[in-house]
């Protein structure tokens, strides 16, 4: 199937259209962030402006339409600029880890033998460490900060792709058109690029799309646990961590601080959902083709 | 033949209603099979051979498939109107079927013996021990060496030819009146095919059953059939006894098919290929479905579909221009004589 055909089907499918709609919505927000929420300091737009030093969050008002969180950080500002953070973390982590996975999986599957053995044992070692714990440990060693979170997530995030790619490559490698290319005198690089990867990439793309959402959640959890972005950085996970002490309001008014949890929570949920919807639709479109 | 018909299929049509449109897999076929004879059904992939046989067994997956019209009279009963409960009694008991790929039609988790015994226990009033003995007898009859041992083996432990023998043993275990064989030797080697065909011919005499033999191999058809139905795009286009068909084919498709295959017993310099390919079932041409490939096609052929009719005694053909083919045959003969 051609890319155009896949795209067309994605748009025709109601569920994926909904997902694509949300993604586009977030893209628009990210692009127009400087206008939606003009930064106080244009050189450092990701620092959320503070409207005071009071501990207790303040509900939505005219100045702060989503209210302010613990420490008077503007929630609206955080959500808007946080969308950029989400895309940055998602795209970079998923992009790089997928590339690493593809590279390792392809080499292991295509060449087999000792190379495969070594690469797969390394993969196993990485897989045997619990993901979140390993990421926390590495971030702690590297030091707090979003870049380090991303490094940690990439370091422990490529193995699934590598395995998926390897099994795909093993399957395709046995196909006759690969032998046909070899018989024509094609070298390994050509065979891998033109024949192997082209025919194995779709499941990996689906997988990557699904991971976009989950990576952002993981990055958020790290922020929530305090090893992520620096305090005051526009990041949805951090926004939620600000609400940690305010999930329950005062007596008789339990939902007093709803905005501190609900708004960043919704942002993360919708972001994650949209990628999953697109990934699901992607799989439905491609699966019947993959089977025959 | 004044004998009574064992099965009489009248104007059977089975369609599949799929997302892309309606596939008229079988579109009005009529034929009959007499007790003890072999009817060969020949045609290319997708022409509706399997769907015809599955319709008789009422094994068409529904949806998307549906028997749209027609009758299948078997023992004075119309099978198209039978309930699935009645059909279960008929299947395996009165009519059995063997398939092309013996591995996929045998259950891999049961032993060969269990599977034959199951058929026997359902349809016959015997106990387990007797059933086992019958299973062993059947395996002996189909020529499996060491049947006492093989009866406890699993399908994957047998070779392709042996599995097909097991399938036959299973199909024959309840003395069916009609055996439908859907390409029973296509997946097998020639030497094994020869074994199986000989076995089937022998068993036919022994059991006195009728066989409906489906295949695309003109050689196999010639060897085993008494009468032959040639199918193209969901229709029977020619229907007659085997000698007449091979000596004097009257439909351009049959004639073309015979010239397009190399014959082991006579050499030709060049095969006469049929141009084009089988039409897409979702998009059949108007009129005669063979008109896109037929050398004799005229405007009439492109507009009106010919019905099958008897043009000589016991020789049915569905073609507007039987005479044109005769002319072509005469010309060819002259050319040969000149040489």
């Amino acid at each position: 199937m051609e890319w155009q055909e896949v795209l067309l089907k994605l748009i025709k499918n109601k569920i994926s259209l909904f997902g694509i709609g949300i993604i586009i919505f977030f893209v628009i927000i990210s692009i127009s962030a400087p206008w939606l929420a003009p930064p106080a300091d244009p050189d450092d737009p990701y620092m959320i402006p503070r409207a005071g030093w009071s501990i207790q969050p303040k509900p939505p008002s005219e100045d702060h339409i989503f209210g302010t969180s613990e420490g008077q950080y503007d929630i609206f500002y955080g959500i808007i600029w946080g969308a950029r953070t989400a895309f940055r973390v998602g795209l970079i982590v998923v992009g790089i880890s997928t590339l690493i996975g593809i590279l390792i999986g392809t080499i292991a599957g295509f060449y087999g033998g000792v190379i495969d053995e070594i690469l797969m044992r390394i993969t196993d070692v990485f897989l045997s460490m619990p993901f979140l714990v390993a990421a926390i440990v590495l971030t702690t060693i590297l030091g707090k900060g979003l870049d380090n979170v991303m490094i940690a997530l990439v370091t422990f995030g490529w193995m699934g792709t590598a395995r998926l790619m390897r099994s795909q490559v093993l399957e395709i490698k046995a196909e006759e058109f690969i032998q046909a290319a070899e018989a024509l005198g094609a070298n390994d690089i050509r065979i891998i690029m033109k024949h192997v990867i082209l025919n194995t990439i779709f499941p990996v793309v689906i997988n990557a799309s699904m991971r976009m959402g989950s990576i952002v959640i993981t990055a958020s959890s790290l922020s929530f646990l305090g090893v992520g972005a620096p305090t005051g950085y526009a990041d949805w996970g951090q926004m939620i961590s600000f609400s940690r002490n305010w999930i329950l309001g005062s007596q008789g008014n339990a939902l007093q601080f709803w905005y501190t949890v609900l708004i960043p929570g919704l942002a993360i949920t919708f972001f994650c959902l949209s990628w999953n919807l697109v990934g699901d639709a992607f799989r439905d479109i491609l699966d019947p083709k993959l089977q025959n | 033949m004044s004998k009574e018909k064992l099965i009489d299929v009248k104007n059977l049509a089975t369609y599949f209603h799929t997302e892309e449109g309606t596939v008229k897999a079988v579109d009005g076929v009529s034929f009959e099979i007499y007790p003890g004879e072999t009817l060969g059904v020949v045609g290319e992939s997708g022409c509706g051979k399997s769907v015809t046989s599955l319709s008789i067994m009422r094994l068409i997956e529904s949806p998307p498939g549906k028997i749209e019209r027609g009758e299948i009279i078997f023992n004075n009963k119309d099978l198209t109107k039978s309930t699935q409960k009645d059909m279960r009694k008929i299947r395996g008991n009165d009519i059995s079927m063997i398939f092309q790929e013996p591995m996929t039609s045998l259950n891999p988790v049961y032993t060969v013996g269990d599977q034959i015994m199951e058929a026997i226990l359902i349809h016959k009033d015997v106990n387990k021990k007797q059933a086992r003995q019958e299973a062993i007898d059947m395996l002996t009859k189909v020529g499996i060496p060491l049947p006492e041992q093989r009866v406890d083996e699993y399908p994957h432990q047998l070779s392709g030819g042996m599995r097909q023998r097991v399938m036959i043993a299973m199909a024959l275990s309840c003395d069916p009146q009609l055996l439908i064989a859907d390409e029973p030797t296509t997946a097998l080697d020639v030497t094994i095919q020869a074994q199986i065909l000989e076995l089937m011919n022998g068993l036919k005499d022994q059991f006195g059953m009728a066989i409906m033999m489906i295949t695309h191999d003109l050689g196999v058809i010639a060897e085993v059939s008494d009468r032959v139905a040639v199918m193209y795009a969901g229709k029977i286009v020619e229907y007659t006894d085997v000698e007449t068909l091979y000596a004097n084919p009257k439909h351009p498709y049959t004639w073309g098919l015979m010239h397009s295959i190399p014959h082991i017993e006579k050499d030709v310099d060049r095969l006469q290929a049929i141009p084009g390919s089988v039409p897409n079932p979702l998009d059949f041409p108007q009129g005669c479905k063979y008109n896109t490939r037929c050398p004799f096609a005229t405007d009439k052929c492109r507009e009106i579909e010919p019905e099958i009719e008897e043009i000589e005694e016991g020789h049915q053909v569905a073609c507007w221009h039987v005479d044109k083919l005769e002319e072509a045959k005469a010309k060819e003969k002259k050319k040969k004589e000149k040489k």
Partner: protein
Amino acid sequence: MTEERLLEIKNLKKYFPVKAGVFRRTVAHVKAVDDISFHINKGETLGLVGESGCGKSTAGRTILRLLEATEGEITFEGQNLLELDKRELREMRKEMQIIFQDPYASLNPRMTVADIVGEPIDIHGLAANKKERNERVTEILDTVGLGTEYMKRYPHEFSGGQRQRIGVARALAVDPSLIIADEPVSALDVSIQAQVINLMQDLQKDFSLTYLFIAHDLSVVKHISDRVAVMYLGKLVEVADKQKLFDDPKHPYTQSLLSAIPVADPTYKSDRIILEGDVPSPVNPPSGCRFHPRCPYAMEICSEVEPEYKDYGEGHYAACHLLEQE
């Protein structure tokens, strides 16, 4: 015809290891091709027949070095192919091509026809620029009877016969001298087979091609071949001129194989030799003559001593004790 040898195979063997256990140790070998020798003359078609699993495809692929030979010699135009290094081999592939059985599996589903046929041109730099490449692709597609309107389409949009033409076109693009056709018509509909067979015959004349034509359908092989080689369980049992082989088969296996073919003529009565049993496993082939458990003429010596494969006159090779005793 001047009988110049294009390809000469000597004592070719290809064993596949059978691995088992936790350590994947090699416990046995599938002797898929076990010591075969034959040659193909320039411009002729050698048919290679035999039952499923007897090693036909393995032989074809080992000759092209798509599989590494276990032992033996493959001389192509005076050069031993097994001595070539990877780069020389890639260069050599211009001269030898393969057509596969399955017209569905052998074409990359994500490449257009123009790219599939153009690939060999790119690999070997046979066109100076894009325009020349396209011209060449058009020309080749035209040769195999496919119009230019098909160039931008993907393989799944074609019928089986058309796909096989694309496969043939791809093989032709490098202008090879030898084409190994591995059951090129077995997967096609009866009415389409003739189209592809005719095409291959025309191309052979036009481009003076040499074919190794692998098939299990003896009628097809008889039609297209000049000489025929019969394989059984990894070994050649008989090789001869087509007419001689079909009129006067010397080896008992060839005899029964020929008699087993169903003839498309209901009046034709053949004296069929029905073989007993199945083809044994190539992991543990029978001792002596591999055919002895099924051979109607088997003698004591047959299970003990392997019969010698030799020329019984005028290039009629066979391996059977019966012949030696005559």
